[in-house]
C-alpha cells in the first residue's frame, strides 16, 4: 500500500508523538528525540515535519494553555490519528518483513 509515505525523520517524530501520548508538543518532542536518539534536532526541521504530517492527516493538533515561559503563546499539542496509526503499523510491518527475509549468511559478515 503505497499511500503511506513516511520519511525517516517523520517516522521518528510520529513515533515520539506516540511515546509522549498526551504531552506531545513542539519543544517536548524535540527534547525527547534529542535525549533518546542522541541527535541534534533543529526547530525548523521539526516544525516542517509536524506541518507535513498534519497535512498528510497522520496527526492532529489542539491548542493548549498559554504559560508565562512562552510569553503568553499557547502550546499546540499533537496526537496520532487513526490514519497515522495505520501508517506507523505499515511502516513497522514492512521493516519487519525485510528483516525476516535477510538470509542468515548476510548478517554473519565474516570475511571469506
Amino acid at each position: 500500500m503505497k499511500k503511506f509515505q513516511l520519511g525517516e525523520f517523520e517516522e521518528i517524530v510520529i513515533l515520539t508523538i506516540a511515546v509522549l501520548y498526551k504531552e506531545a508538543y513542539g519543544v517536548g518532542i524535540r527534547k525527547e528525540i534529542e535525549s533518546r536518539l542522541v541527535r541534534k534536532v533543529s526547530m525548523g526541521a521539526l516544525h516542517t515535519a509536524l506541518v507535513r504530517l498534519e497535512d498528510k492527516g497522520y496527526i492532529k493538533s489542539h491548542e493548549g494553555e498559554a504559560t508565562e515561559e512562552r510569553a503568553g503563546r499557547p502550546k499546540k499539542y499533537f496526537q496520532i490519528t487513526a490514519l497515522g496509526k495505520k501508517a506507523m503499523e505499515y511502516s513497522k510491518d514492512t521493516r519487519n518483513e525485510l528483516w525476516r527475509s535477510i538470509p542468515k549468511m548476510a548478517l554473519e559478515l565474516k570475511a571469506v
Partner: protein
Amino acid sequence: MKKPPRLFLRFFRWYCHPKLLGHIEGDLIEVYNEQVKVSKRRADINFIIDVVLLCRPGIIKPVEVHSNINQRAMLKSYLKIGWRNLTGNMGYSLINIGGLAIGMTVAIFIGLWVHDETSFNKYHENYDYIGQIRHNNYDPSTGLIEGGLALEFPIGAALKNTYPQYFKHVVMAWWPGDYSISSGEEKFARRGMFAESTALEMFSIKMKEGSYRSLDKQNSIVISQAMADAIFGKEDPMNKSLRINNNMDVEVTGVFETIPRNNQLGDVHFFAPWSLWIASNAWLHGKETDWDNRMTNTYVQLEPNTTVEEVNAAIKDLFPKNVPADFYATIAKYKPHPVIVPMNKWHLYSEFENGEPAGGLITFVWLFGIVGVFVLLLACINFINLSTARSEKRAREVGVRKAIGSARNQLVLQFLSESLMVVTIAFAVSMLLVVSLQPLFNELADKEISLPFANVEFWGIVIAFIVLTGIMAGLYPAVYLSSFQPARVLKGALRLSRFGTLPRKVLVVVQFTVSVVLIIGTLIVYKQIGFARDRPVGYNRSGLISMGTADPGFDGKMNVLRTELLASGVVSEVATASAPLTALWNTTGGYDWPGKDPNAESDFANVNITYEFGKTVGWEIVAGRDFSREFGTDSANAIIINQAAAKYMGLENPVGERLTDVNEVGKFKWSKEIIGVVKDLVVSSPYEPVMQTIYYQNDQNDHILHIRIDPSVSAATAIPTIKEVLAKIVPTAPFDYDFVDDEFAAKFSQEQRVGKLSAIFSVLAIFISCLGLFGLSSFVAEQRTKEIGIRKVMGASIGSLWQMLSKDFVLLVIVACFIAIPAGYFLMNLWLEKFEYRTETSWWVFILTCLAAVVITLLTVSYQSIKAAMMNPVNSLRSE
C-alpha cells in the same frame, strides 16, 4: 525576563505563516527562557540559528498568489475608477496632466536633438573606418602639442607610398567652399568640394545617376539631387555643361542623393575632381613637393582589420621618412606628425587639447541631456506630490478595499495603473505639442528634426518611456497609498505625522533649486553674450559689406571698380584684403626683430591690404601712420602692426623698428619698417584675445572686396546701385555679398542658441514647479478649511490668514535658493572659464533670481491663500 534578539524575532514574525506563528514562537521563547538561565549568549546564538533554520518552505507564508481568473475585469474596474477620479477632480487632473505633458515634451525634444547630434555622419557606410588627417606638432614655447587640419600638399602621396598596407583609400581634397556655378546665363551659389575621385566610394555617396567612377574625367562634376532640381528642374542633368567660378568648365557626370544635414558633408552639393582644382589654380602648380606650407585636406579610410590607434602609432614617422634634407632641423625642433581623427569624433569632439580630441559639442549634448532629465523629473515630482497630498481623499477607499480582502500588491497595481493612465494621456498631449511646436524648435536649434513615426525602434522607445515615467511618478504614491491600515483609516483617524509632509517638502525644494539654477545659468549666458558683443572690435562694423573676388572677371579691374563705385555716390571707400574681417586665414612664423629672444616663437597673423583699407573699415591708428599712396615705397618697405603684436614683440615704440623675415635655416628673406600701430581688430573669436597681426600693403592678394556704404545713404538704396556697378564692370560675377556686422553676429550664434534654449527651459521649469505649488497650496488650503473658518470667526484678518498659509511655501523656496546659489555659482564659473574674455558672475544676478523666485512663489500661493481666507466661515464650518 530576558528577551531574545529583537531583530530576529521580528524577522521571524515577518516570514512565518500566520497559522504557525503562534505556537512556533512560543516554542522558541520557551527554549530561549530555559537556555538563558545558563548563558544569555548561548541562548541568543541558538535562537538565531533556530530562526534562520526555520526559514524554509513549509513554514514561510505563501506569496499571495491570486487566481488570475478575473484579472481582466479587475483591470477594467481599476481603469474605470481611475477615470472617474480624474474627471471628478478636473482641476487637479489638468494640473497633473499638464505638468507631465510639458515635462515629456521637453524631454522628447531634447531626446530628438541629442539623437540628431550623436548620429552625425552615420550616413556614411564606412563610418567606422574613415578619418581625417590632422597635422600635429610640438610647440616649444608652450610645451604642448598643437596642430590643425591644414596639411602639407605632399602628405597624401607620402601616406600612400610609405604605408600602403593600412589605407584602403587616401583622398586629397580642398576645403569645402562656396562657389559660383553658372548654367548658361543663370548663376547659382553652391557649396562644393574638390576631391580625388575615390572620395565618392570612400564616403559611400549614394549615386542615383552615374557611378563611383563619375569623377575620373578631369572636367566632370557630380551634383546633389537638390542642386539638380534647382538648376535643371525636371530635365535630366546628365551630360549638361556647367561652369564653376567662371573658369572651370565641367560636364555633369552623376547625380547623388542629397546628403542629410546631420553630416559634416551635409551642405556639400557637388563634388569635382581634385585634378581640376590643381589645373585651374596656377599657384598650386608645383606644390606637390612643397613641405613648407599647409593648406590641403586629406581623408583616409583604414583597412578593415586595423584600428586608429594602431595606424596612428605606425605613421608617426611620416615626416622624417619623407621630407627633404633641409627640413630635418625643423622637424627635429617641432616633431611634426600626422594623426588620424576618426569620423566618430568629427562632430562632437572638434576641440583639441595637446593634440587629442578633447570635447566640443559633446558638452552641450551632455548639458542638454541632463537638463531634459531634470525637467522631466520636476514634472514627475509634481505628480508625486499632488498624489500623495491628496491621498487622504482616497484613504477610505483603501480602507474598505483592504477590509474586503484586497492584498497590498493589488492596491499597488491599482494605483500604478491609474498613474499609467494619466501618463499615457499626458504623452498623447505631449505628442500633439511636439508635432505643433516642431517647426519652432527646428528654427531655434537650427536642425531638421522630426518624429520618426515609421521607425519601429521609436515606438519601442515610446512604450519604454511611458512605462518608465509611469513607474517613476506613480510608484511612491502607490506604495504610500496602499500602506494605509484599514482600522485606523476607516475610523477617520488618519492624521499625517510631521514626517509625512517631509518628503513633499524636500521635493518642492528640489524643484525650485533646479529652476533657480537654470535661471541663474540663463542670465549669465546672456550676460556673457552681451559682454562679448560690447567688446570694442577696433573697426566700424555697420554699413560695411564684403564679397569674394574669386571670379576671374575681377582680374585687373580692381582700380576701375573702385573709381566707378566711388563715382556712384553711394560708396565712401573701397578696398581689398587677402582675408575677410571675420576670419583668420593666414598665420606665418619665422620673423625676427630687435630684442627678440632667439628661441622664442614668432607666429603672426598676416593680412595683405590695399591703401584704402584702413579708411574703408574705419580702423584706428594709435601710433605712426596708415598706408598712404604718397609714400611710394609702402608696398615694398612698410608694414603696420596691431597693438597685440607690439606687446608680443615687447617693443615700447615700435614705429621705426624693422621686422625681418627669415626662413627655417635663418637665411634672410626681407626686412620692412613698422610705420604704424593700429588698435586691435577682433577677427576670430570675440571671447579670445586678439592675435598679433601684421598688415602688408599689397594690391595683388585681393581675395575679399570691402565696400563702405556712404553713411548718409541707406543700405537699401546703396545695394542696388552697387550691384549695377558691379554688373557693368564684372558682368560674370554674381553679386554675392555679406554685411560684415551680420557675419560678426554669426560668431555669437552658438551662444545665443544656448541662451535662448536655456531661457525656455528655465521658464518651463519654473512653470512646472509653480504648477505643482499651485496644486499643493490649493490642497493645503482645502485641508485647513475648518481651521481657517474658526480663525476668521475668532477675528483673524485676511492679511494674517494669508501670511499663515503662504509662510510655509515661501520658506521652502528660500531654502531652495540657498542651495541653488552656490551650485549655480560653481557651475557658471566652470562654463565661463573656457572663455578667455569673459564677464564675471556678479552678485546681483543671484539676488535678482532669488527675489524673482520668491515673488513668483508668493503670487502662485497667494491666489489660493486669499481665496481660502476670504471664504465665508459659515460655509467652511458647516461641512458634514
